[in-house]
Structures are given as C-alpha cells and as structure tokens.
C-alpha cells in the first residue's frame, strides 16, 4: 500500500504532466489579423464568409490560398494569402498593399510603411528595422523604387511577440510603384510546419 504522501506526490506529478502536455500543444484560438484565428482550418475560414482560392503552383509553405471577402482588412490591402501547412492549420498570412504610384521616390509607400510600423509595434512590440540603400547605381532620390526592384535596396522591420513574428517591408511592383508587404507567422504553427515538412520530405525521398 502507498502511503498518503506518496499518493499525493503521484497525483501532483500526474496533473503536472497533463499541464505540460497541454502547454506543448500548439494553442489554437489565438487571434490572428484580418478577423482570423491561428490554427483554424481552411473550412473554418470559409465558414466565416471568406472565399478561398487555391493558389496555382507549388507553395513552400504547404497549402496556400488567396482570400477574399474577409471580415476585416486594411483599407489599401490588395491581396491576402493564407498558408495552412500540411495539416490544414492556419500558420502564416501575407498581406500585400496596392502598388502606389507612379512615385519613383517611393515616398508614398514608405509613408504608409511607417504608419503600419507604428500600429504593428503597438500590438507586437517594438520592431527592429533594416534599411539598406543602393549607394552605387540607383542612388538618386527618384530611383529608390528602382533600387528596391533590382534588389539593391531593402527596407523592412521585424516584430517579435510571444507567439507571432511579423515582417513589414516595402517592395517594388515595378520601376516606379511600391507597396507594403506584411508577413505574419504563428510561432507554434511554424514549428509544427517545419516538423511536418521534414517528415514530408523524408517520405518523398
């Protein structure tokens, strides 16, 4: 027969193991941008009234869809892409703004980028900005968008919260139009996706 103290210790250990298991499970139900919830399935997204169109071609992030009729989006968002990995769980979102221009200096897109950076920092904490400029070829003030387009300049800010990583950047649509791109990635979902990807690749070989 176990003593009373030993039985209590066993019960505590059992409860702790349950708590650890629950904590290790990716926590579905965390609110995501655009009225979505991290971890929801594509069917659950459709039930909110949104329409999903499967993206043609291969996605390096698992099942990928272009979403329309979302319950809330930014006023100048052109496209929203949702990624569900291999297990049909939302773990990555990309939102691209309308190309702004003709504006070869990129001032309109940069101004919008700065506005969004402020809003994102309120929610996800202070971001870390990288601003690399072309100092050789496309260095004129009216050549900034061209330098972005040619991959000779980069401007982006990374935000890290407990569960969500965000990257906000300015991109070039062509030589005189730029737009913002926001990438949201749910940490537990990303880890799950990476593990699934390894299994998927192993199976494929």
């Amino acid at each position: 027969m176990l003593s009373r103290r030993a039985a209590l210790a066993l019960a505590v250990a059992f409860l702790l193991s349950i708590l650890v298991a629950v904590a290790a499970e990716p926590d579905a139900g965390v609110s995501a941008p655009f009225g979505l919830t991290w971890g929801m399935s594509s069917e659950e997204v459709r039930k909110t009234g949104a329409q999903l169109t499967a993206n043609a071609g291969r996605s390096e992030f698992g099942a990928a869809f272009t979403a329309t009729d979302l319950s809330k989006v930014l006023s100048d968002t052109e496209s929203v892409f949702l990624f569900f990995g291999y297990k049909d769980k939302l773990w990555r979102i990309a939102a691209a703004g309308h190309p702004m221009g003709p504006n070869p200096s990129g001032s309109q897109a940069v101004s919008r980028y700065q506005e969004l950076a402020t809003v994102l920092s309120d929610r996800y904490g202070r971001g870390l900005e990288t601003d690399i400029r072309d100092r050789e070829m496309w260095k004129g003030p009216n050549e900034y968008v061209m330098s972005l387009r040619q991959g000779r300049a980069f401007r982006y800010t990374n935000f890290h919260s407990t569960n969500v990583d965000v990257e906000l950047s300015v991109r070039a649509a062509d030589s005189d139009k730029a737009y913002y791109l926001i990438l949201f990635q749910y940490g537990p979902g990303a880890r799950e996706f990476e593990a699934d990807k390894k299994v998927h690749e192993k199976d494929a070989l």
Partner: protein
Amino acid sequence: MKKTFVTIVAAVALSASVAAAVVHGAGPSTAELDVEIASIKTEIAAADAQAALYSGGLILAQTQLRVTILKNTLAMLEQKRASFLRGITLNYQEPTPRISAPFDDAAAISELDKARGDAKATQREAAMYSGGLIQTMALVREATAKTTEAAIEQRIAFMKLGIPLPFLSGTNLPVPKSPGKTTSDKNAL
C-alpha cells in the same frame, strides 16, 4: 571494321553539333552579355556627361529619359548575367497575352539604323551653328533621336533575352476581387 569506326565518328560529330546548337540556342553567352553590358555602360557615361551640360529644359529631359532607358537595359542584362553565374533559370512570364504585335528582328535593326542616322544628321546640323534657336532645335532633335535609339536598343536586348515586350496597361485586365471589408489599421491587424 573501318566502316564501323567511320559510323561512330560520324555519330559523335553529329551529337556534338546538335549539343552545340542546343547550347547556342539557349540564349546569349556570358561573354556576349559582358560585351553588351560594357557597351551600355559606355552609353550611360556618355549620356550622363551630356546631361551635365544642361541645367534644365527639353534637351536635359530627353537625355535623362535616355539614361533611364539605358539603366533599365543595364539592370536587366546584369540580372541575366547574374542568373547564369548562379545557375538560376530566369524566366520572364507575361501575366496576360501581349497586346503589342510580335516584334520583327529585321524591322527593329532597320529602325535602329534610322534612329542612329537621324541622330548623326542632327548632330552635324547642330555643329554648323555656334548658338541660337536653330542650333537649339537641332540639339533637341538629336536628343530625341538618341532617346529613340536607346529605346530600340532595349527592345532588341529584350528580344535577344526572350523577355516579353511590355504590354499596354488598362485593357483586358481582370478586375481584382476585394480582399474583404475595410476597417481601421488597428482593428484589422
């Protein structure tokens, strides 16, 4: 025995010529691109030097336009060259069927010759005067002809590299669906 040997040699020679034809047909070589890049850089330097002579006006605007076209061509050539060096296959796809008619190589070269001839003629005409309105007008025509020349050179480079010609925007483009109901930045994010 001798017949078999001759057959093998002929087969090897045929394979080599087919392989050479395939490689040649795959696009311009790095050496060819280097020559074109050097040529475009020289043209940019010359156009920059010409632009530096003016502080404003139509000739400067035309020259700056030419510099921009040349820089675009240079960027594209450098991109193509980098793709070769890094072993990346660079494909340019048209989002919609092209609206402009398929470009004829011979016609492009003929247009280029004409633009070059016009530029030289107006250059000679401008050199006949030491100033005044007639010289200014000749210089404007020369700058226009040189811009046309740069644009045709770009079209020829596009053709060589298999890059689709730019299409006219605003026609037959699908209307994108709205991503959703717009709200404030804070609420959406």
